[in-house]
């Protein structure tokens, strides 16, 4: 599904060069359209173009952001009725009405995004489906405004000179619009925006902790899909000069989703393949109306079984894979975190005061206080269920504290969202790996740099920095590999690299050595020490006491949500309260005599 990220062309090719093939094909299509005189073929071409425009927006939403909406017919209607009502009731110029249609549809898209953002999977399907049905019923029943099945007649079309557009003009228009949409979307999706959407589709929590505002990006995807679908509806209404409620059906919604899934979701070429194939199928099957539905259904039934990544995905698998172009890139070695140097010296980097959290009656953090310093490696240890992971989650904003304050470099971040904290330089890894498995190692690392690219706006810098980070953790030669295909030990390091790419001031590691063999653990220890030397404050939760004692500058011991000890490793080893928490009370003699 995410083949697109693999196919990303070399980053530094000039924009014009990248646009050349699309422009060329567009020009050829226009030339071809101008030679056609058969109205039937022209109409087919027009509809294919409209389908492509709808599908390309839907691909952003369903393919990249992973939000399978079943209500796009409602947005199609929003665009269509916008031009219909604006030109017939208010006599707005047709061109202006056409321009207004995507805007109105986008506004409706925001409306449907609001409830959709709170639900997932089948519930999301239902919310969007219900939206589509409400619109369908509304335009059918509210005849005073929408004309119902009677429809709206006399929709003003665009004009060429004084003449209304002929079918040929409409075809040229959709080709021009289609190429423009394709170029704009490739520009967006082959960079930071597309990566962010793929990341949140793969793992929302990991995306959020990498600095991506899941809420904002999902809304954007809804709005883009809505605007393009609305544009498609408006084009159809103006070309027909007529629109009625029969266009707005659940089948249209399914069809628009199908264009994307069949063509190849999450692939920039998917909608083109989908629009071409489904339009042809419709035309071809129209000769035998009796079997048309039957074959159509069979296609749906087996298509994704035979081609799970759609037609475009299946084609991409046959073509040789282009790997990320990092080979020629020289990146200066990573010697210090840029942000780290800017912090005022003295004072703790992170100061946690009286943080408490309870889940029902279980208190997992009870007035926890913590001070973390730049350049130092801190370890957080404690028996199972002590609340270590909870504390990491509170610090990164994945769960919110019930009370207490958290200050980063003197600023209160207690109420900050996870992505805002990530943008301020709090990075983390997860106890159970949360990599974006079907994306490349390089893309994983670039997602870590999401917020940073947002500031500098320069993808090239981010790629160079990603290269430096990959060299630093020793993954340089794996940049082009899919993260999910690497062995476990290397995947752990990819996650570390992703966290480092965001230029963190504070790095939180949740059991980084879990599942590693002794040699990998030793290498990890050296790596963490070097990360500390970069100027980063490190806090790691770890059960491997050998590792903890060897590399920590400072250890905090947590038991049942309470900090019971903190200090240098050798102080902790002899601290009676720590021994008691781990092994039980000394006076409990019979426990020690057990032969286990």
């Amino acid at each position: 599904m995410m083949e697109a990220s693999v196919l990303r062309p070399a980053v530094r090719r000039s924009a014009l060069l990248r646009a050349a093939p699309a422009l060329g094909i567009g020009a050829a299509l226009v030339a071809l359209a101008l030679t056609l005189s058969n109205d039937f073929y022209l109409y087919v071409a027009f509809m294919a173009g409209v389908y492509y425009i709808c599908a390309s927006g839907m691909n952003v939403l369903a393919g990249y952001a992973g939000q399978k909406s079943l209500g796009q017919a409602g947005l199609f209607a929003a665009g269509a009725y916008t031009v219909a009502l604006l030109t017939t009731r208010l006599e707005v110029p047709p061109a202006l009405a056409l321009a207004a249609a995507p805007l109105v549809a986008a506004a409706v898209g925001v409306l449907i995004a609001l409830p959709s953002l709170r639900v997932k999977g089948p519930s999301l399907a239902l919310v969007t489906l219900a939206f589509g049905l409400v619109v369908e019923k509304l335009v059918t029943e509210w005849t005073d405004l929408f004309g119902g099945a009677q429809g709206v007649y006399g929709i003003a079309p665009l004009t060429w000179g004084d003449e209304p557009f002929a079918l040929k003009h409409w075809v040229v228009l959709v080709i021009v619009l289609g190429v423009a949409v394709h170029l704009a979307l490739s520009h967006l999706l082959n960079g930071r925006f597309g990566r962010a959407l793929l990341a949140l589709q793969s793992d929302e929590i990991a995306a959020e902790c990498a600095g991506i505002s899941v809420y904002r990006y999902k809304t954007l995807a809804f709005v883009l899909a809505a605007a393009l679908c609305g544009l498609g509806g408006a084009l159809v209404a103006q070309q027909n000069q007529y629109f009625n409620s029969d266009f707005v059906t659940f089948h249209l919604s399914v069809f628009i989703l199908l264009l994307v899934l069949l063509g190849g979701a999450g692939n920039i070429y998917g909608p083109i393949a989908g629009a071409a194939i489904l339009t042809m199928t419709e035309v071809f099957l129209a000769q035998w109306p009796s079997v048309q539905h039957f074959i159509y259904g069979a296609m749906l039934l087996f298509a994704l079984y035979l081609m799970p990544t759609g037609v475009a995905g299946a084609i991409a698998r046959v073509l040789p894979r282009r790997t990320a172009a990092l080979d020629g890139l020289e990146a200066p070695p990573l010697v210090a975190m840029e942000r780290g140097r800017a912090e005022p010296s003295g004072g703790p980097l992170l100061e946690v005061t009286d943080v408490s959290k309870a889940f029902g009656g279980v208190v997992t953090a009870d007035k926890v206080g913590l001070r973390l310093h730049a350049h130092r490696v801190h370890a957080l240890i404690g028996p199972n269920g002590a609340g270590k992971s909870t504390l990491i989650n509170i610090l990164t904003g994945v769960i919110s504290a019930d009370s207490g304050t958290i200050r980063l470099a003197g600023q209160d971040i207690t109420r900050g969202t996870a992505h805002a904290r990530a943008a301020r330089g709090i990075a983390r890894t997860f106890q159970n790996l949360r990599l974006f498995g079907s994306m490349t190692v390089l893309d994983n690392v670039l997602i870590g740099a999401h917020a940073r690219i947002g500031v500098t706006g320069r993808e090239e810098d981010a790629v160079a920095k990603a290269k430096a980070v990959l060299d630093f953790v020793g993954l340089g030669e794996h940049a082009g590999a899919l993260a999910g295909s690497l062995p476990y030990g290397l995947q752990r390091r990819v996650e570390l690299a992703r966290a480092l790419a965001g230029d963190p001031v504070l790095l939180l590691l949740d059991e980084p050595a879990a599942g590693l063999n002794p040699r990998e653990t030793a290498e990890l220890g050296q790596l963490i020490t070097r990360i500390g030397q970069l100027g980063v404050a490190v806090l790691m939760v770890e059960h491997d006491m050998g590792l903890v004692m060897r590399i920590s500058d400072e250890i905090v011991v947590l038991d049942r949500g309470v900090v019971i000890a903190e200090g240098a490793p050798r102080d902790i080893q002899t601290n009676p309260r720590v021994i008691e928490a781990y092994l039980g009370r000394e006076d409990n003699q019979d426990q020690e005599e057990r032969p286990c």
Partner: protein
Amino acid sequence: MLQAIIGGLTLGSVYALIALGFNLTYTTTRTLNFAQGDFVSVGAFVGLGTVGVLTAALGADAVGYVWLYALAAVAAALVMGVLGLPLYLAAIRPFAGKPGMSWVVSTIGFGIVLQSAALSVWGLGARMLPAPFGDEVFRIGEAGFRSQELVVLVLAVAILGAFDVAMRRTAIGRCMRAVALNRDAAALMGIDVPRVMAMAFLASSALAGLSGVLVAPILSASLFMGVIIALKGFSAAIIGGLTNPRGCMAGGLLIGLVESLTALWSAQWREIMVFLLVILVLAMAPNGLFGRKLVEKV
């Protein structure tokens, strides 16, 4: 008013049957049959066909129509239940347990195939299936209702109750709940998970077919009637909480009531009201009214 409530509960109990079907497949396979609507319509026509064939074979009035209707209901449930197996094999099994929602497309595809096959047999037109106890209107106070409404209500409630007991008390019910709770652990305990999943689809499709026969005397039966009924069943399942069978039943009754009470005021607006309610409920309670919140461990 009373009339509207009875009518609402009647339709609601049909939605509840369908919602229960969604619950069964969702908990065991994390997938839903988006062709459920076609199973409802085709179920109704299988019922109609059975009545027709039996009347022709036995001669009219050979046995009471009540028995014919009962046989038709059983036949519809059986045929649709058996059709649930190819649905599972072709449209669900390749995608169960995988991310993405490819099964939406494949089940819709199966539905279209089923519908076009049925269209070639029965054609486009709508038919009436007579109610087993006649069409007279009973009166209680000033409210009048049809016998079929009571039949549907009683039967549906009985089936829902039987399912509730079966899921809790029988071995197969325990297996289904085990698979629903933790598929891997259930497999390790020796439960044949694919078989349980297939059973879930069999039961779910049988429920859809039965619902079709039950509503056919109330609404006129056409091959297009199922879609909206199934969508309301789907809504019922989601707002009641897809993971909670009793929630699904409650959701069905709620949707039925909202629909028929809205119809008192304006018949055209009832679908709009139902689906607006769905959007509203999910915006407030993303896991449905009685659904369990799935906590993701980080």
